């Protein structure tokens, strides 16, 4: 049964799913944040592989560039900046792990149990080349122009915010945004 379940699947899916899950587990269990980042990058790579298998080449690339390239580098950069390479994260209690496993497991079971027959309900229309850069780009700049523009606002806001928070004030008492007159 189990073997049928596993070996009935395409080999690519199996392999990359395996890598994905393994790396993801490594991310959440490893003590060293730097290794976590690296494992996460690996996860992203395998997810990109999934994308490719799903014929979503554009997203596969974007995923690599944005996530693995930009975001993760940012993470690494911050880790290095703060010199957080290892062992400054206190261990949580064993009981807490159990609770977390239980909670996450319950959610997983519920999701899996509730969705096991869901594929029958989905209109299947496997198709074409929607995931290609060309077609996706076309949609993005016509139908999805507004959100695309608006994500610009988002970025601007995020940038301003990040700068605001990140910059070191000359005097330590900025009290930005509060009414208080006296230093806290």
């Amino acid at each position, binding site marked *: 049964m189990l073997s049928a379940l596993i070996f009935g699947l395409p080999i690519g899916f199996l392999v990359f799913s395996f890598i994905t899950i393994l790396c993801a587990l490594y991310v959440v269990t490893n003590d060293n944040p730097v290794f976590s980042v690296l494992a996460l990058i690996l996860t992203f790579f395998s997810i990109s592989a999934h994308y490719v298998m799903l014929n979503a080449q554009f*997203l596969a690339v974007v995923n690599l560039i944005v996530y693995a390239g930009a975001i993760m580098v940012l993470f690494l950069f911050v880790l290095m900046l703060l010199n*957080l390479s290892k062992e400054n994260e206190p261990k949580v209690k064993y009981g807490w792990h159990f609770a977390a496993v239980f*909670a996450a497991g319950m959610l997983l079971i519920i999701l899996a149990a509730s969705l096991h027959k869901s594929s029958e309900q*989905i209109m299947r*229309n*496997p198709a074409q080349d929607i995931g290609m850069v060309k077609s996706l780009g076309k949609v993005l700049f016509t139908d999805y122009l507004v959100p695309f523009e608006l994500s610009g606002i988002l970025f601007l806001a995020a940038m301003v915010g990040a700068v605001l928070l990140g910059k070191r004030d000359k005097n330590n008492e900025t009290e930005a945004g509060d009414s208080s007159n006296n230093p806290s």
Partner: protein
Amino acid sequence: MNTDSIFSSLDISHYIYLSSVLFCIGLFGVLTRRNAIVLLMCIELMLNAVNLLFVAFSSYMGDSAGQLFVFFIMVVAAAEAAVGLAIIVMIYRNVRSTDVGLFDKLKG
């Protein structure tokens, strides 16, 4: 590679399972890790699970909206990560730690 070939032998529910597993792994990480940066990473993992699901649905149904949503999720995730890291850096300056467990003064 052709999606036909993938879905000819592969049910969409496998992707649902995979994404769910990934999401729950991320969730587990969120629940157990105390380093803010790692927490953020776990959240990114959860987002990726969602992305994978979107793409799978999108391909399965031949609808581009899902993939575009994923694109926007990525964009937003980047912005969010930037702000989040800025916040983490800021708190690190104040408490010399990124341990979120230290922040329990506001309560009750």
